[in-house]
C-alpha cells in the first residue's frame, strides 16, 4: 500500500486531521473521515457538481481532487453555511422559492451559488445560470433555483457598484 498522507484541513472553521491513502478522493475524506455527509457523490465522473465544496474560497468538485491536495487548506461544506443557528440567505431562498424537489443536487447548488455571490453579489439572471452551469438538477428545471438565488440577493442587499462577472458573453 502506498505511503499514507497526513491531511490537515480547517473545515467549517474547525481544524481536522487524518491519515489517508493518497488515492483517497476529497469527497470521501469529507464524507467518510470527517463524517460530513451533506456533500453528495452524484455522478463521480466530474459531470454533476453534487460534490461541490469551497476550497480556499473557490468552488471545486471534491470528487475530482485527492484529499492530499487539500492539505493545509480551508474548506467550507454545506454544513458550514448555517451561522449561529441562522440559515444562510441562500438556504432560505431555496426553501422559500421551492428551489429543490428531491434535494440531491442542493448541497452542490448551494456551494456554487455561494461562490458566485462571493465574487458577484448582484448577478444578472444570465450570470446566475452561468454560475450553476457546472451543477445538474434533474427535478426543478432550474427556474426555481434561479429564483432562490435572486431571493438571497434581495435579502443580502445589493452592492452600490455592479462587479463584472467573469466569463459571461458580451
Amino acid at each position, binding site marked *: *500500500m502506498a505511503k499514507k498522507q497526513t491531511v490537515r484541513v480547517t473545515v467549517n472553521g474547525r481544524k481536522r486531521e487524518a491519515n489517508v491513502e493518497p488515492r483517497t*478522493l476529497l469527497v470521501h475524506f469529507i464524507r467518510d473521515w470527517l463524517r460530513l455527509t451533506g456533500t453528495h457523490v452524484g455522478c463521480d465522473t*466530474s459531470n454533476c457538481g453534487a460534490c461541490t465544496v469551497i476550497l480556499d474560497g473557490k468552488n471545486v468538485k471534491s470528487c475530482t481532487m485527492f484529499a492530499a491536495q487539500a492539505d493545509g487548506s480551508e474548506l467550507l461544506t454545506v454544513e458550514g453555511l448555517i451561522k449561529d443557528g441562522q440559515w444562510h440567505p441562500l438556504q432560505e431562498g431555496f426553501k422559500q422559492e421551492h428551489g429543490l424537489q428531491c434535494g440531491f443536487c442542493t448541497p452542490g447548488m448551494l456551494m456554487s451559488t455561494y*461562490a458566485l455571490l462571493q465574487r458577484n453579489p448582484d448577478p444578472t439572471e444570465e450570470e446566475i445560470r452561468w454560475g450553476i452551469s457546472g451543477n445538474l438538477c434533474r427535478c426543478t428545471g432550474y427556474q426555481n433555483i434561479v429564483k432562490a438565488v435572486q431571493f438571497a440577493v434581495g435579502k443580502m442587499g445589493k452592492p452600490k457598484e455592479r462587479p463584472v462577472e467573469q*466569463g459571461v458573453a458580451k
Partner: protein
Amino acid sequence: MIPPSFEYFRPKTIPEAIALLQQHGDDAKILSGGQSLIPMMKLRLARPGYLIDINRIAGLSHINEEGGHLKIGGLTREAELEASPVVRAKYPIIVDTARVIADPQVRNLATVGGNLAHGDPANDHPATMVALGAQVVATGPKGERIIPIEDFFLSLFSTALQHDEILTEIRIPIPPPRSGGAYFKLERKVGDFATAAVAVQLTLDEKGACQNVGIGLTNVGPTPVKAKKAEDFLRGKKLDEANIKQAAQLAADGSEPSADLRGPVAYKKALVKELTKRALTRASERASK
C-alpha cells in the same frame, strides 16, 4: 470510483520535481489541475504508479507581458485567465477559449499547461495557441527549451514533452496594433468537448486587408489542425464576404474529423466552415476597433 493506488509526492521546486520524474521514469505523472488526469485514473485509462503534485511549486502561476510576449505560467488556472485584466483587454481569443472549457468548478482547478500537455485534440487551448503562434517552454534536467506550438502536438495524447520535462510557461507574441481574435465552439452542453471549434487570430494592415492570420481547429483531427491553406489564401486580401467564405471552405477541407456521437464527418466539416466564417468575422471586427 476510487483510482488505483499510487505514491504521492509534493515537491516544492522544479528541480525536485524533475528529479522525481527521472527517478520514476514513465510510471510517473505530473499532477497539475487534475481535471483530466483524475477522471482518467478513475476509469483506469491512466494508471501512474507515482503522482508528482506540482501545485505547491512557486513561480508557475503568472500572467504578464514581458519581452514582446504574453507569458502564462503552466499552472495558471482557467478561471484566472478569464478574470485577468490584461487578457480581457488584449487577448479576447483567450477569454473566448477559457470561458467555454468545461464548467466553473473545473475551471477553478484546471490549468492551461495541463490543457496543452495532455495532448488531447478535443481540448480548447491547443487550437487557440496554434492560431496565436505560441511557444511552449519545457523545463527539464538541462534547463529550459522552447518548442514552437506547431511542433508540440505529435499525435493523439502525445506531445514533444520528454518524460522528464515539465511545461512551465506558454509565450504568446504580443499582437501588433489592428489585431483581433476569436474562438467559436459548438458543444452539445456545458462541460462537453467541442463537436468542433475554430480559433482565429489576425492582424489587419492600414488599408484593412489581412496582413497576418492564424487559424486553429479543435477536435477535427488527431492533433489540433492548423488551417494553413486558409491562412495562405487570406494573407493580403480584404476580409469581405467572398474571401471569408472561400477561407472557411479551405479550413473545412483541411479538417479531418471522425464520426462519433457528436455527428458524422460531413456535418463536422460543415460546422468547421460555419464556425470559421463566424470567427473570422468576429476577429476582424475586434481588429477594426
